[in-house]
């Protein structure tokens, strides 16, 4: 029994790290641009599919990882210039609808290029599972967890300890004030999407070895990331990370102990409950404004 629970905890933490990564990207883009990016899941899928193609021409994983991130980051930037930037000044609702459009287009593009096949990606490190307390832990889970930690720490360092991070915070706090100092909000929006693309690919390439990759898996990932973000109140980065882990563990335990058909229903139920009763998030306090 104890081993089974530990096993569920491990798989919950693995899936939870994936959701945390998704939530982290969604929240930081939202904080910086005010845009709720419903295409974040597609960035993940495109990143993973690019990696699939790079692997198939024989590139080693150590090269595939950064190259896919780079390409997806470029794609993120390109999309920002072609859509979000064109719609400057549009309401947040319109921006949200634009991101839905981006998501549909990217899914279509992925279908055209990669088809409906299910692809797999090689794990970062060879070797079988580790056994801890009688439960098996996939080494790739550790990589995913590490990526979530690095991502979180990197974001913290960027915002708290770099000049550019402060410029971004300034632009979020007071757009006019920032413009008057020469901080260009359009450049910041571009960088935010470049980062979202890159982080999405990093997540995609890391989870690919565990989840397999199909052109249409982005939607559900996006939903889970959104739920993780909503648990943290949408603007709280640590809230989204904790929210993601919480959601992953909850899913693992409910499908392990009750029924696996509950898995996706759980997140939707949580989302509805949060939006109904605590729209400011379960974790963390309310914050007022963004750009």
């Amino acid at each position, binding site marked *: 029994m104890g081993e089974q629970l530990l096993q569920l905890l491990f798989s919950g933490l693995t899936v939870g790290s994936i959701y945390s990564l998704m939530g982290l990207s969604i929240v930081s883009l939202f904080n910086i641009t005010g845009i709720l990016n419903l295409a974040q899941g597609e960035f993940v899928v495109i990143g993973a599919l690019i990696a699939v193609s790079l692997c198939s021409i024989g590139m080693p994983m150590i090269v595939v990882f950064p190259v896919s991130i780079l390409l997806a980051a470029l794609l993120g930037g390109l999309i920002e210039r072609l859509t979000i930037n064109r719609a400057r000044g549009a309401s947040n609702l319109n921006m949200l609808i634009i991101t839905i459009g981006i998501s549909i287009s990217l899914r279509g593009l992925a279908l055209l290029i990669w088809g409906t096949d299910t692809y797999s990606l090689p794990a970062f490190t060879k070797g079988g599972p580790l056994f801890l307390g009688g439960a098996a832990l996939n080494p790739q889970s550790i990589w995913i967890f590490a990526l979530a930690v690095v991502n979180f720490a990197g974001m913290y360092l960027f915002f708290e300890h770099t000049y550019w991070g402060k410029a971004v*915070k*300034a632009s979020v*706090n*007071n757009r*006019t004030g*920032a*413009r*008057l*100092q*020469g901080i260009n909000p359009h450049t910041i929006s571009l960088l935010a999407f470049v980062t979202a693309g890159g982080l999405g690919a990093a997540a995609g390439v890391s989870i690919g070895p565990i989840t397999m990759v199909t052109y249409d898996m982005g939607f559900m990932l996006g939903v889970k990331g959104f739920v993780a973000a909503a648990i943290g109140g949408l603007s709280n980065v640590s809230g989204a990370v904790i929210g993601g882990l919480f959601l992953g563990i909850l899913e693992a335990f409910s499908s392990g102990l009750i029924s696996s058909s509950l898995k996706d229903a759980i997140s939707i139920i949580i989302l509805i409950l949060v939006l109904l009763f605590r729209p400011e998030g379960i974790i963390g306090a309310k914050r007022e404004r963004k750009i």
Partner: protein
Amino acid sequence: MLRIKNLSVYYGYVHAIKDISLEVKEGELLVILGANGAGKSTLLGTAAGLIKPAAGEILFNNKAVTGQTSEQIVSKGISLIPEKREIFTTLTVLDNLLLGAFHRYRKNKEGLKNDIKEILGIFPALKGRERDLAGSLSGGLQQMLAIGRGLMSRPALLLLDEPSVGLAPLIVQEIMAILVNLKKTGVTIVLVEQNTKSALKVADSVLVMERGGITHRGSPLEITANSSIQEAYLGRARS
């Protein structure tokens, strides 16, 4: 230094600036007076690139800057301290000042520490508050921070939009004295004010605006002597 020719600015159908021409000479402190809604902020905002003009030309050191963005204009040497101050309330005083140097940050990071020291020398009241959040400062200190942040861009031309609004007379005096000292260091200043008396004391020349146009120009003495202006502005605002 700054020449504005036949400038017109609209907000939708509101004609906020009507065919204004003016010149700011290098090294002077020009005061612009005018009632609420006269178009003073719109004029400064347009010169600083926040608002796009419908017609006219803005020349800075004989080069056209008309229609450029505020990000471009600040790097040319014009800095606006806006009416609402627009400081970064969620950032520290130090970060606010550092970000004032954003447009030149890549070129010279090293000079920043000295510049901060210099600014704190100009505004000693900010000393010891560097780590505090800007939003926690009093109104007077926030205004000083706004000016200090503007100075961090090393402007040749400083545009100030009603810096004395809401501040105690003693602090207004302090700020005016600082502006006079800044002028001595070679910064050209345009000061928009309703707090007329204290502004006229430091002015080299004065413009009076009314409903989007300029109605009077002259030296502070001429403006003070003009009875219609006396009645409209000087009788009301006391400092």
